[in-house]
């Protein structure tokens, strides 16, 4: 093997040995750059395949989308070069993330979903994964009727080897039921995951977070605490699990565990700041607002925090006025909500800000 190729494969090997996260992704990016200089198409494809995996599971889906755009043009130009099966899996992942960027228009999203569906049908594959992603798209866009419609289509479409694994599918069903506050149902569905009968790389990690709100609403607080204890550890080290961290942080705020909540806030704020997926940044800011609202109602006025200097309101001394922090997050929340609402053509995100302010009603105390 010549020297350039060896460099590329050394990078991929090094990446392979790492857990998902920024380091792994940046090694793959470097491999892609070298492959582009080297100019061999099969190496360019191989390195991008690795980059897409790393970026999707390492919390930087925008990088996966860029690499996938390259792949899809290569696929249209010369289909023999690309492994169809692998390509379809990646296409499905991309669908799951595309709506997280408010600047991508609904028209563009629809065109991409249509293209993906065509591709799946042309390859004689079930549309099950497409429906699953459509359901999730409509849920996150505030189109409830459509979400229900696609949920039904997803559940009735046949499963094939392009579908997600059973654990992932069940996990998403739990999310769906919890989202619509069918709390008992969500917990029922989650059972085989929670008792260890179903698992994969992302499950039960995510599931422990999904069931927190149902448990809180059903006042099953001890179980919620247990779910936090088990689940947070599993998601605390990889930025891809920001959505789950948000669920755990919300639990801590509602459970009046403010000290612990502040620690999580300090630790994970950097993920939210660096997240290009603005829906996740939005959700994190919402729960941050909830935390400072709680502190304010506890009578606190200022607080010492260790925050990254990337934070727009960063203070060298680390002392922050709580009212100012609340206002700062609220301001950013409105900016992001406007972007999404404009894209979605409704007020869903603005309403989420209001609903969040109401959550304090669910606050509770644990016995221990």
């Amino acid at each position, binding site marked *: 093997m010549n020297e350039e190729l060896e460099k590329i494969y050394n990078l991929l090997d090094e990446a392979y040995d790492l857990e998902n996260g920024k380091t792994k992704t940046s090694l793959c990016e470097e491999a892609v*750059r070298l492959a582009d200089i080297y100019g061999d198409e099969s190496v360019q494809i191989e390195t991008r395949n690795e980059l897409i995996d790393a970026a999707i599971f390492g919390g930087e889906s925008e990088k996966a989308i860029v690499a996938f755009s390259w792949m899809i043009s290569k696929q249209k130009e010369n289909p023999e070069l690309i492994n169809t099966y692998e390509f379809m899996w990646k296409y499905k992942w991309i669908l799951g993330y595309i709506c997280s960027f408010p600047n991508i228009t609904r028209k563009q999203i629809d065109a*991409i979903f249509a293209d993906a569906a065509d591709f799946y049908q042309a390859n004689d594959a079930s549309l099950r994964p497409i429906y699953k992603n459509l359901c999730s798209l409509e849920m996150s866009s505030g189109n409830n009727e459509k979400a229900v419609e696609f949920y039904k289509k997803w559940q009735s479409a046949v499963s094939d080897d392009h579908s997600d694994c059973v654990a992932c599918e069940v996990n998403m069903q739990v999310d769906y039921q919890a989202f619509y506050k069918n709390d008992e149902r969500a917990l029922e569905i989650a059972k085989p995951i929670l008792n*260890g009968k179903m698992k994969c790389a992302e499950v039960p990690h995510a599931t422990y977070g999904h069931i927190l709100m149902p448990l809180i609403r059903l006042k099953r607080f001890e179980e919620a605490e247990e779910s936090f204890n088990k689940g947070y550890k599993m998601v605390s080290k990889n930025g891809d699990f920001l959505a789950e961290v948000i669920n755990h942080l919300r639990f801590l705020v509602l459970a009046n565990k403010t000290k612990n909540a502040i620690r999580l806030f300090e630790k994970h704020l950097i993920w939210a700041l660096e997240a290009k997926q603005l829906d996740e940044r939005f959700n994190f800011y919402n729960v941050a607002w909830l935390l400072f609202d709680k502190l304010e109602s506890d009578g606190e006025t200022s607080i010492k925090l260790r925050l990254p*200097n990337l934070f727009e309101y960063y203070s060298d001394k680390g002392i922050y006025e709580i009212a100012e922090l609340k206002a700062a997050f609220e301001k950013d929340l409105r900016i992001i909500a406007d972007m999404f609402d404009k894209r979605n053509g409704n007020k869903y995100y603005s309403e989420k800000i209001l609903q969040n302010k109401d959550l304090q009603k669910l606050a509770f105390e644990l016995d221990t």
Partner: protein
Amino acid sequence: MAHKFQIDLLGIIELLSEHLYSSPQVYLRELLQNGVDAIQARQSVGVDFQPGVNVSISTNKNGGMQMLFEDNGIGLTEDEIHKFLSTIGKSSKRGLENIYDTDFIGQFGIGLLSCFVVSETVHVKTLSAKAGSKPIEWKGRDDGTYSVNEIDENLNIGTQVFLECKSGLEEYFDADFIETSLKNYGGLLKFPIVFNDGENETQINSEVPPWREKFYTSPEEDEAFLRYGQKIFGTQFLDYIRLEDDAGEVSGVAYVLPFSPSLASKRTHRVYLKNMLLSENAEDLLPDWAFFVKSIVNVNNLRPTASRESFYEDAKLISTRNLLGAKLRAYLLDLAENEPNKLRKIISIHYLSIKALAIDDDEFFRMFIDWMPFETTLGWMSLGEYKKLNSRIAFIKDRDQFRQISQVAASQNICVLNASYTYDAELLYKHYDLFREIAVEEVTPSSFSREFAFLTLDEQEETAQFLRLADEVLRSFQSVADMKKFSPTELPVVFLADEEAGFRRSVEQTKQVSSELWSSVLDNISLSDAAENSSQLCFNFSNPLIYKISRSSDEHLQTLAVKMLYVQSLLLSHRPLNSAEMKMFNESLLGMLEFSVDIGGEWIQ
């Protein structure tokens, strides 16, 4: 009396062999498990007897291999035989998910079924310990027929299973194979397992594991443990850690690996349940951060999953995992206190594991952080050494950015940590959290370049025209020009790009090959609310070439030089050229040649 299974027996056998078990050899595990369960059942009713399992192989009159597997456990009554058959019936309808949720009798039947993978007939003779029981014989065939009869034979209490090897599967009846498998599965069992290969009789579990032995000196103990590890895993381990709990539910040993394992792959362990081997590759029993050890553990109170190869993730598993984690942690703390040299050696191999633990554990962090190695612009060093050289901690989080500045930083003797490796940045943030008196600062290429020496006012004036021109040339490449003084003086320029600029570059490059739809998506995805971040080409006024070019009055030469230096710096930082850059490179190269030919004089005719 002949019966017909009310179930799809062949289907079940297929399921068992293909989906549930790793390979056909598990029939031996199942037979042994049945024997163990039967013996424990008989012990639990308080009968005094010498428990034991005997396995023997022989050749039948046609030259085929056969096996007799005997235990002196509780045995089965005729009713119980019917019960296990009905359990199998239920399992066939419910699928295999819950088959191990059944009781001893049900499991016994399922264990027997696995024998059909290697034998066309399974022939059982049994006498139950229950008062008034009579010897019973059960003969099953893999075509789905079976018979149950009382027999007039003098049997001891217990169960005998006869198997006849299917043709083609002789390897699973081979004496060495059986002996090794029995040792593997039953090596830790406390009652004798005797194997007769037709000539000799041997007890296969005569060796006692070291944690059940008493040692009077620690060298003796060390040697016994390490020898055992070498024997089981074939590895010369660095050290060992005893794993025992007070309640006697957990026992075993963890061995410190002599090499650095992959972070991505889970470490697997050799796990026994009530002294029967459950899995040689069990995950999840130890905490995630424990990837520096390989362990052998026997547990008494955990619930195995359907495949019997790992455990259910329940509260008991979690508390066992916490207990084992605490043992490993105590071991490392003890080394720090008492055996620093040994610790240094272990850290040099396993620092990632230790870093992972330090993130979650303050006490551990305080104890170990200064021992941890980090890459810096001045080479690898421990954080303790770094702190001796520097009053604050400066780090870069991105590997590409670290490379951009490392040459310049090294030559100016500036020490910056490369925190792009797993856990590093998080550890450094935590450092500030726990030791506020030491400042911790994240550096980016642009913040780093702000520390380069500025030009004097005169020098700024002299080079102003050149910088304007360079800016003009670079604008179409989303790049800006700057002029500073830095060493090494041989370096004419550095290309500095923050993460955002790097991302935009990849977007621009991809857009050139993308369809209209995806190209417009890329445009929108790279729109951001952050301020425009462009890359920067920083010229080095201390470099003789740059000094001359920047003061030249020849704008054509300057333009060519900026273009060439820009492309060169991209290539040096491993950035592929897009088509516009490639075009510019070609034009400026030809321009440069033309220029040198022009000053070299007329073509010689």
